[in-house]
Each structure stands twice: as C-alpha cells, then as structure tokens.
C-alpha cells in the first residue's frame, strides 16, 4: 500500500534506521518501540464536527429514526484521539438521545485511546471546532462542554458517562455488540480492498436491521463486496442504511 510504505520510510528515518530491516530489529527487541512505531503508522488527525454537513445530516435525517428506539448503541470505529466521539456525545445530548445511548469508542492505538479518554485538545483548535459545530446545526455553544486553561481545552467528563473505550482492531477482532449506528470515517482509506471488505462485513454484522453506517466524505462502499448490503441514505454525506433483508 502506497500510504503505509510512505509512513514506514518516514518512521525509518525518524528512528535513525538505515533500512526497514534495522527498524524491524528494533521493534522485535525493544518493547517500547511498537507503541512508538504505531504512532507513525496510524494517522491521527481529526477535528470536532469534521465535515459539518455529515453531522447536520445525522441531526436532520438520522436522529428522527434513532428517536424511535428505546435504547441505542453507537460504535465510533477508529476513534483515534476522540474528536469524533465528543462530536457525537455533544450532538446526542443536544438531540435528547444521550441518556438512552451507549457509545463504543474503539481504536488499535493505545496512546490515541488514552488521549480520547482524557479529552484534552489545544485551545487554538477550538475556533475551528466551534465553527464546525455551528455549521453542523449545533443548538448550544461548544464552550458549554469544555473548560479552558493553560492553552488547553478539557472536555467535560460527563460526556464520557455513556462511553466505553476499547482496544479493537477492524483487521483481526470480531463483532462485540449489536449497534444501531456505526461511524467509521477516514479509516477505511488506509485499508486495501480485502481489509475494507472485512471491516464492512463487521459493520454489517454489528448493525441491527435498518441500522446506519457513516463513512468519510470521500469514501464509498461502491468498490467493496457489500454495496448490496446497504442503501445510500444520504448520498453526499456518505450515510448508508443497512437493508431490511441483508
């Protein structure tokens, strides 16, 4: 894969290795190296309410469906450092769904999960996050959800009351719960077609009948084996709905 190759070469240079096999040797013999390398191999940039149109479509089109369920499970697959999770937690609180919802936030990168659980972001990112939140149709002020101090914004721990953080690999692990919504954005772009097929099969297994799947703005199910399992629910916003008899 082109992307992983690029990042492996970057890691090789960063760790002062002359070759990939030298890097391999370090990983095999130094326990701390795997975590350090993981940070190079996984991509961790995100924003709160990234692609506001996605969240607006969830508010306007998906939430009315979700309100008909007495309890909800939402899976943020590949949650990275938590931006997507907090976006969902805030949106669900605004829409009155939080109390009935359990969020699963999963990632393979332990360091990212720790950051997600801490919920601390650079204060200078808040301007963008606030604008995104507003464009997503936010009904409250984003500043209601964090406290600012020493150049950092710390998100309110009450947002994590309904969240389970967990180490989970879309490549090797199995389905762990029935869910009504899976959001997995800008994760599948790093997978080849075989891995994409496996991950989307997991989502299809996990989703209940007529459950929703959200992908990144430039991702599509069209080139996977599972395009027949889902209907396009909001095409532009990459929201899919699992078919009735899938």
């Amino acid at each position, binding site marked *: *894969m*082109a*992307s992983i*190759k*690029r*990042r492996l070469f970057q890691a090789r240079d960063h760790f002062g290795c002359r070759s990939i096999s030298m890097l391999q040797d370090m990983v095999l013999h130094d326990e701390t190296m795997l975590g350090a390398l993981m940070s190079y191999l996984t*991509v961790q*940039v995100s924003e709160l309410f990234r*692609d506001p149109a996605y969240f607006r479509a969830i508010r306007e089109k998906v939430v009315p469906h979700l309100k008909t369920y007495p309890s909800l499970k939402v899976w943020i697959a590949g949650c990275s450092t938590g931006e997507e999770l907090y976006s969902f937690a805030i949106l669900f609180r605004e829409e009155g769904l939080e109390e009935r919802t359990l969020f699963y936030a999963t990632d393979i990168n332990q360091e990212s999960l720790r950051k997600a659980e801490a919920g601390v972001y650079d204060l200078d990112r808040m301007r963008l996050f606030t604008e995104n939140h507003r464009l997503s149709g936010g009904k409250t002020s984003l500043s209601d959800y964090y406290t600012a101090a020493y150049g950092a914004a710390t998100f309110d721990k009450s947002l994590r009351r309904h969240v389970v953080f967990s180490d989970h690999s879309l490549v090797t692990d199995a389905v762990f719960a029935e869910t009504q919504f899976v959001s997995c954005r*800008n994760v*599948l*772009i*790093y997978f*080849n*077609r075989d891995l*994409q097929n496996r991950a989307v099969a997991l989502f299809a297994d996990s989703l209940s009948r007529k459950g929703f799947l959200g992908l*990144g*703005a*430039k*991702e*599509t199910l*069209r*080139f*996977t084996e599972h395009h027949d399992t889902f209907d396009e629910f909001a095409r532009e916003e990459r929201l899919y709905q699992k078919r009735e008899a899938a």
Partner: protein
Amino acid sequence: MSARPRKAVVIGASAGGVEALSAVLPHLPPDHCPVLVVIHLPSNRQSVLADLFRDKCRMKVVEAEDKAPIDAGTIYFAPPDYHLMVETAFTVALSNEAPVWFSRPSIDVLFETAADAYGPGLTGVILTGANEDGAAGLRAVLAQGGRGLIQSPETAYARLMPETALSFCSGATVRPLEHLAAELLKGAA
C-alpha cells in the same frame, strides 16, 4: 502484463494553476491515458475543480474516490484536504496524513506513489506555483524511468515551483505553457 508499460500522466500545480490547467487539459483527446491532478487550494472542502473542468474537457473528469480503478480517458482531481495516491494495483487511494510542504493534497505524494506504480510509463508535469512541492516527486518520476515536463518559469504565474523542479530534475523537458499539451501528446503514442 504486456511488455509495454501502462501509461499515465500526473500533474501538479499551485498558484495560478487553474488557468494553467485550462491551457492543457482541454487539448487531451477522449482516449488519452489517465491523468491525475493535484492542485493546491484552500481546504474549504468545496470540490469545485471537477465541476469546473468537466465542461471544458473531452476526457471524463471526476474527483478521485478512494479505491476507484484508474481508467484511460479519465482525469482524476485530488479532493481538497486529502492526499491522492496511486496503488501498484492501479487504483486510487486517499489519505489524511499530515500535509507535505503545508499542502494536502501534496504533489510529491502523488508523484512518488504514481512513479512506484507506473515506472517508465509515467509522465510528471509541474506547472506554476509559489511552493516547492513537486520537485522531489518529479525527481522520483525520472528515477523510475518516467518523463518529466516543466512549465517554463517565464510563462508561469508563479515561478518558484517550476524553478525548484528544474533545479531538482535536469533531465526534465521545459516548455512554455502553450506548448505543454502538444508535448504531452507526443509521448502518448
């Protein structure tokens, strides 16, 4: 695979790039080998480029989608805020990796991955720009036996990008903007 390598063209542009591309892309015939384009734009996520060029071009114009096969007769634009990459299976891959030269999409990233996939079948084209992105990428294209084409700095809206590419790639061909399309078509036979 046949002995003849698969062909493709990659184009990188920055400041003044839309006008420069308008002098090149419309001249390419509908059966031309695939063309992949990175142009630096503010990342406001509004993908207007494909729409802008669709009516002007005889080739099919699309915004690249992840995992799409790369087909002849098609121009692929990198979506704003994603790197555009080529897989060795001749499919498109997108990435959210960190910007290169403050740019995402980055010309270097497209050119380097495309050079890996297409080798001697690839032509890399550097157009106008006020940024050093693309020079290392074009060098990678030439190193894999591909062809390098640079817009002459005198005809560029911003000269830094073609000049940097020139200093990296002495083996590249330099042409004024109005002759670039003809030069591209020479290699398409």
